[in-house]
């Protein structure tokens, strides 16, 4: 009986958490940056975007290079190494670009957001904002939210572009695939709407989810060192799982049926 009660209470807590998270999301969405907040947003874009740039570029480069190497060894045995370009480009644009960027973003920027907001809560900075008649949602959450939503797709685009260049480096410059066929077969296969735009949409959705989870976890963490560390871990775990699950759903919607 007690177990049943606990289950019911747990479920209710969970639904309430979803409710308050949604309310926060809408709050942040509609608290669209005013001119004053645009500068805050630019600063946050520096924190979540520019500071994630290095890890994104390096990972993109290596993933592109590894894919070219792996793809080449398989394709060459069918005499189809000309298809290396589209293979690298499509995997990056459709899947690896958005997904890996989002996972890295969750680990690099999401956790930092949670920790920062959690710490602001623990040191009463959020309360103090409230008492100064400044809405923390508007002043603290919204700029971070929008900065994340803008930065992530840009990071994903940079990731894919760098990956394709990395694939070119290994496939063409080292393994000797013809440069012309690398690009031209890629061009005839890759579609702007189908592949590039869908990839960006994926990245946008992932960004929304990661930033949302990160901000919610930070804002509602238990303001102790233990609570913040737990919230940070949860941000990374929940974001990663949600990204992978959503990726399947989005892929099925975009590429599954046609």
């Amino acid at each position, binding site marked *: 009986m007690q177990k049943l009660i606990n289950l019911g209470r747990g479920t209710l807590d969970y639904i309430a958490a979803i409710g308050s998270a949604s309310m926060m999301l809408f709050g942040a969405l509609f608290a669209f940056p005013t001119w004053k907040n645009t*500068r*805050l947003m*630019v*600063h946050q*874009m*520096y924190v979540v*975007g*520019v500071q994630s*740039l290095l890890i994104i570029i390096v990972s993109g480069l290596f993933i592109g290079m590894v894919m070219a190497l792996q793809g080449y060894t398989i394709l060459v045995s*069918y*005499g*189809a190494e000309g298809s290396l370009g589209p293979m690298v*480009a499509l995997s990056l*644009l459709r899947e690896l670009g958005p997904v890996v960027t989002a996972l890295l973003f969750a680990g690099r920027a999401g956790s930092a957001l949670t920790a920062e907001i959690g710490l602001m809560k623990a040191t009463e900075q959020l309360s103090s904002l409230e008492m100064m008649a400044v809405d923390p949602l508007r002043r603290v959450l919204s700029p971070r939210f929008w900065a994340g939503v803008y*930065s992530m797709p*840009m*990071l994903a*685009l*940079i990731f*894919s*572009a*760098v990956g*394709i*260049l990395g694939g070119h480096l290994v496939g063409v410059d080292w393994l000797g695939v013809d440069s012309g066929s690398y*690009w031209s077969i*890629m*061009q*005839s296969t*890759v*579609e*702007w*709407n*189908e*592949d*590039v735009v869908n990839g960006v949409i994926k990245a946008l959705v992932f960004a929304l989810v990661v930033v949302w989870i990160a901000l919610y976890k930070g804002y509602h963490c238990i303001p102790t060192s233990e609570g913040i560390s737990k919230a940070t871990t949860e941000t990374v775990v929940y974001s990663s799982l949600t990204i992978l699950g959503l990726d399947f759903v989005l892929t099925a919607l975009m590429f599954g049926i*046609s």
Partner: protein
Amino acid sequence: MTSRKTELLVGIFVALAIAATLLLALRVANQGMAGGGETYTLTARFDNIGGLKARSSVKVGGVIVGRVSRIYLNERDLVPMVEMEISTEYANTFPDTSSLSILTSGLLGEQFIGLKPGFIFPEDLEMIEEDKVCETSPYENCPYLTEGEEIMDTKSALVLEDLIGQFLFNQGNE
């Protein structure tokens, strides 16, 4: 507070993103043919389309001139119909005696439609010059393929099983 350096770095970040988009648009996706662009529609009836899909390309001697926009079944005759969008760059170019065949690029490559241009009688050329039949609708007398026209001469995709069957049949006859 936002310092000048931060703003500068964010600017560089955005510029990088735009550069990446440009690279993807121009070098990777080749925006030229894929989207936008005015097109006109042709249809064709095949016995068997094999592995042809929507968005497969339509090529003339290897040059992409359009894409398959829709594949559906003609409900009366129960044969597949293919709808193609051909770039208006190639309007009034292909004679209505042109033929279509479904081809495969390479051994394992994807299938596409090959368009083989037909010919035009010299008297038709005069008709175009004099009566301007290809400049205003209806295009009934225009000897070129125009909007909505159906191409009659089509060759189906090669299906491996049919080929083998035919081969065995021929062997049996000998």
